[in-house]
């Protein structure tokens, strides 16, 4: 009963966050869908431009050198960068809000003065994050399937679902990192800055490894290396290495966060 109450509480209090980011994600998707017919008609010209770009840059920006179908186009233009960026911002904000912010503004004191175990509170908020992330992915990515049907565009349905699942794993990794920092801090700003900084470093490492061949090994240290929307959609599968990296990274950071939150002192 306590767990359900805590889960319902976090979903209710953070619903504006999920709705706002889902609307932003959906807005971008509709924008790309609206220009898709004109992009499709000029695909030959785009392919010429892409052919002139360095392969490393194309890989770094998750751009494929053709626009074979709707999902290929969206993977290149939207799901490869903008969508991931919106998702990262969303889960960073959520993880900072549900622990560190509540300590900062002292509402955590109200919760901790009740017979609620810290571990239960942490897990309820983490599961609330997974549900919220699922809602975001549903409205900003999976929805492309019925929308494509509505506008009579050919679409690879399973590819949509596999990309949604990969996005969930990627988002979960960042959220877990945010939860780990949030469990250790009493400042939401510091949590956002730290998580953002780690992601920025990972992204810089990923770009550098794509552009400079001697830095190729750096890509393995970046979460961005393990999410390749174009390939996931084209192959309708997620590479095992990606599943393992996202899974292990999420598990380790989430557990470190849970232990820290259970043991830490809270000035409320």
């Amino acid at each position, binding site marked *: 009963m*306590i767990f359900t109450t805590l889960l319902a509480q976090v979903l209710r209090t953070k619903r504006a966050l999920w709705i706002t980011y889902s609307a932003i994600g959906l807005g971008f998707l509709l924008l790309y869908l609206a220009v898709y017919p004109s992009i499709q008609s000029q695909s030959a010209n785009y392919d010429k431009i892409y052919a002139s770009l360095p392969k490393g840059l194309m890989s770094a920006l998750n751009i494929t050198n053709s626009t074979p179908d709707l999902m290929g186009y969206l993977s290149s233009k939207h799901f490869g960068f903008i969508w991931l960026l919106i998702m990262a911002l969303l889960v960073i904000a959520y993880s900072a809000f549900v622990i560190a912010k509540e300590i900062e503004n002292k509402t955590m*004191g109200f919760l*901790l*003065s009740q017979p609620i175990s810290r571990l239960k509170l942490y897990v309820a908020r983490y599961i609330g994050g997974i549900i919220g992330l699922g809602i975001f992915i549903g409205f900003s990515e999976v929805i492309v399937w019925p929308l494509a049907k509505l506008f009579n565009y050919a679409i690879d349905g399973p590819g949509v679902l596999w990309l949604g699942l990969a996005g969930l794993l990627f988002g979960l990794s960042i959220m877990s990192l945010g939860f780990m920092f949030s469990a250790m801090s009493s400042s939401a700003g510091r949590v956002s800055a730290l998580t953002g900084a780690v992601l920025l470093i990972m992204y810089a490492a990923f770009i550098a490894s794509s552009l400079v061949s001697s830095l190729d090994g750096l890509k393995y240290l970046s979460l961005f290396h393990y999410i390749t929307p174009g390939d996931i959609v084209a192959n309708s599968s997620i590479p095992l290495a990606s599943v393992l990296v996202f899974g292990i990274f999420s598990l380790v950071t989430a557990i470190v966060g849970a232990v820290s939150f259970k043991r830490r002192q*809270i*000035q409320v």
Partner: protein
Amino acid sequence: MRIGLEYNSLMNLLEVNGLSKKFGSVEALHNVSFTIEAGHIFGFLGPNGAGKSTTIRTIMGFLHPSAGNVTIFGLDSIAHSVELKEKIGYVPAEPVLYQDWTVDEHIGFLANVRGGDIHAKANELKKLLELDGGKKVKQLSTGNQQKLAIVLALAIAPELLILDEPTRGLDPLLRSTFHKLLRQYKLDGGTVLLSSHDLSEVEDLCDKIVIIHNGKLIQDTTVTRLRSNHGHKIKAHFVDGTPDLTKLKDIDDLVTTPHTAVFTVRGSLQPVLEILAKHNVEDLEITSASLEDIFEEIYT
């Protein structure tokens, strides 16, 4: 009930044993010890920064002691934090609740978490404290937010109430209503740890008090004993002229005029009264030291 099995009425309900708390190099509490017996209202006094809130946060398990421990109902407050909170109602110094929730939503949340029907008691308290259940916290004044914190703490019918300056922000009428609630709660068998700056409140309500200063416990006593230790002020008017009182033991601050003597007696009044009885005393006024006087003396 697990707590009921481990706790028996002969034990102190709350024991603070050699509690020390350091924040880096700053020692906020140093070897603080006191006990609270069941069925009493226990005053916890000290100036700002004395360590009252740190002690209370440690009792609540939010902070961990650097040394020493706290037991409540015979159980360690950190190891058994969750089960102990089933029995504890808490009002923090600055109650911070969810701004977008209504009063009733807070009560509903508590009912779900606690698993009991607290609505009847909560409604009674809301009516008594004139609190509108439909209002969001952000629409409430500081005083009304304080009322909500009091309603939430009392509605769960706790065995121990921990109150950190609970009447701050309440007007005198509501303060009086709250005092009545606390007295009734005590009559019903409840126990209270009351941290307060309001000395008259402590004087009116508390059976026993602890005074803390710079993180150290400096008094652990009853209000009556504290007053008695700090003396009685005597003003005597003599018909035949003021006798020589300078040889009286345990008196201070002696001021005399031809027919009047004013002085403070430390310790027992009996020897002084026996001496005074030998003279023709026209008027005699004996007053106990107020807590304000005692506080001033302790802290200066």
